């Protein structure tokens, strides 16, 4: 520890200099904008100038103080390397938390409905968070594993939601029949998107997928006869407990199980439903990563040419990534439709794609746990600031900048190898075979 200390001395003079400079610039900028107020007065409607020294001083002082603090932190190297001022015990603790955080979060998620049974608001929020976790995990296949930047992911969410709504309304299919169908349809659209973008990467891919997301939304708005246009689709069948409806009738869930009726039953059921769907997504992703196809995705992200020269068909690899990613969005979409009972194109705007992508990127591109935490922080945090609606984008932006400075590769940037070999010496054939599946 002692060796790391010397760089950590407070550079007050330097920080003061920085702050003075910033205050000077602020004064220049604000002296006209804040320092003077103009008013049209009297009959002549001539402009009158009123000085506002207090406001001007306040703004300049705020800039000075803020800049001073930031400069102090950076100049003194307090923040440059967090490891430097985190004692070893603490980092050991963090590693420990990291190992068990996943299990802890899962257990917590499982008992949320028990703890907050009567808190409808929190239950709804939890459902929202888990939906985003699932979407994040789904998009992670495309962006995190296969490295294909997809800005139109919400399109597949929309396909899933509309598939469910239309199938359930027109054919009276139950949720459990619609769910796989919606997934398959979304996967189909994933492949449709995949074909034209096979040769694209990076920025170009991002632009085309962005356009694709918008196309789907605009089609939904304009195809009145089929999708209900901007009015959307309402009266989508609500979920039942494997055929037992959640109502207060004699055949209802409460009566069947000898409980007293409360609307919370349905919400709790929805919560466990989305949790199960999310966990399935997670399980599949973890399994797939260990299969040749998952390894091919990751190899594709690392080096496409090397991939091909090893005999990997990159066309198939990309299309399966798009299809599977889209399929999970389709599942989430059907859940969304049955939960809301009403859907319209407004739920599937670019903002949603951006949010999901932000969750994946902030979570650490490829880390399942990181994505869950990022979704919790982003969706939950967003909700916390609901009262200060006009500030929340600022807070959001600051948080993003903060993460970029201190954790440029995401919250959990460590990539877990898909195979672990404990023994160093001999290579047990069983391990090797297990790894190859």
């Amino acid at each position, binding site marked *: 520890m002692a060796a790391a200390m010397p760089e950590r001395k407070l550079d007050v003079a330097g920080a003061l200099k920085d702050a003075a400079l910033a205050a000077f610039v602020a004064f220049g900028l604000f002296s006209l904008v804040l320092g003077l107020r103009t008013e049209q007065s009297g009959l002549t409607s001539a402009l009158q100038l009123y000085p506002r020294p207090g406001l001007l001083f306040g703004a300049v002082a705020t800039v000075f103080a803020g800049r001073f603090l930031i400069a102090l932190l950076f100049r003194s190297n307090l923040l440059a390397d967090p490891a430097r001022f985190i004692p070893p015990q603490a980092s050991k603790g963090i590693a420990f938390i990291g190992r068990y955080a996943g299990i802890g979060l899962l257990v917590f998620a499982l008992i949320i409905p028990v703890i907050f049974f009567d808190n409808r608001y929190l239950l709804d929020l939890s459902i929202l968070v888990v939906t985003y976790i699932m979407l994040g995990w789904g998009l992670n296949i495309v962006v995190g594993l296969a490295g294909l930047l997809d800005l139109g992911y919400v399109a597949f969410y929309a396909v899933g939601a509309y598939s469910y709504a239309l199938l359930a309304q027109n054919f009276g299919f139950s949720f459990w029949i619609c769910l796989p169908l919606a997934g398959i349809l979304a996967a189909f659209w994933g492949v449709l998107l995949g074909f034209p973008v096979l040769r694209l990467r990076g920025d170009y891919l991002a632009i085309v997928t962005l356009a694709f997301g918008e196309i789907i939304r605009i089609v939904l708005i304009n195809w009145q006869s089929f999708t209900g246009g901007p009015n959307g689709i309402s009266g989508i069948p609500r979920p039942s407990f494997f055929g037992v409806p959640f109502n207060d009738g004699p055949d209802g869930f409460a009566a069947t199980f000898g409980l007293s009726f409360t609307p919370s039953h349905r919400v709790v059921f929805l919560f466990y439903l989305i949790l199960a769907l999310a966990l399935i997504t997670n399980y599949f992703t973890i399994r797939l990563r260990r299969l*040749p196809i998952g*390894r*091919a995705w*990751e*190899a594709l992200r*690392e*080096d496409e*040419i*090397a*991939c*091909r*020269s*090893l*005999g*990997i*068909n*990159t066309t198939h690899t990309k299309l399966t990534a798009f299809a599977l990613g889209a399929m999970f969005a389709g599942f989430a979409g059907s859940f969304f439709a049955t939960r809301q009972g009403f859907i319209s194109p407004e739920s599937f705007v670019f903002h949603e794609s951006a949010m999901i992508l932000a969750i994946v990127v902030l979570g650490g591109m490829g880390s399942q746990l990181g994505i869950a935490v990022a979704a919790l922080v982003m969706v939950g945090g967003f909700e916390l600031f609901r009262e200060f609606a006009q500030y929340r984008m600022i807070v959001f932006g600051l948080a993003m900048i903060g993460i970029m400075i201190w954790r440029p590769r995401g919250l959990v940037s460590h*990539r877990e*190898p*898909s*195979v*672990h*070999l404990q023994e*160093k010496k001999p*290579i047990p*054939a069983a391990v*090797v*075979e297990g*790894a*190859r599946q």
Partner: protein
Amino acid sequence: MKSPLLSVRGVKTFYGNIMALGGVDLEVFEGEIVTLIGANGAGKSTLMMTICGTPQAREGQILFDGRDITRIPTHEIARARIAQSPEGRRIFPRMTVFENLQLGAAITDFEFFAQDLRRVFAMFPILEQRRDQRGGTLSGGEQQMLAIARALMSRPRLLLLDEPSLGLAPLLVQSIFNAIRELNEKEKLTIFLVEQNAHHALKLAHRGYVLVNGEITMQGTGAELLNKPEVREAYLEGTTRHQ
């Protein structure tokens, strides 16, 4: 005389409008080590990549074991059992050594995997020690070994090596060349080798070609080329004086 394993006939490759290969002819027979030498920018790597189908030849023909592979996609060429350790190594940096090797074996029957793994670890023991380390954090020489090992994991019939000695310490260069010779002698692997290190390469190879500005200007056995004054002047200056 039996027919060649690889034959390149009048191959022209372009980058846009710029011709990088202007009609290359060469042959590699089963069991041979053939080397291709040439100055920077002569088109050596381009030829390697053209054999693998990225980019594809605009004119001419490439036959592998009698089959025309000129227009088939790269991954199909790899499945025909041509493996490459490319220029710049191109290992997967965020994946572990073990995962890189698994990817090398992407097209083989998995019953061979354990055995092949033992084989490459025996050849490059350092890789076994680094098995769980990320490819990108290996030293340059270790990355080179990994690139060769990964290529070998696909059980190739023809191994293309693009400057395997690049950036390696002399001792390591020697051991890489020894490994190449051993592969050829013990396992009868056919190897097509691109090298800047012309002296080493020509001594090792059965035959060699000299590429200048996208065209083959000389060919012959390794010893023949080593003794040609033009070759000595252009590619062996400095090295021979000390040998």
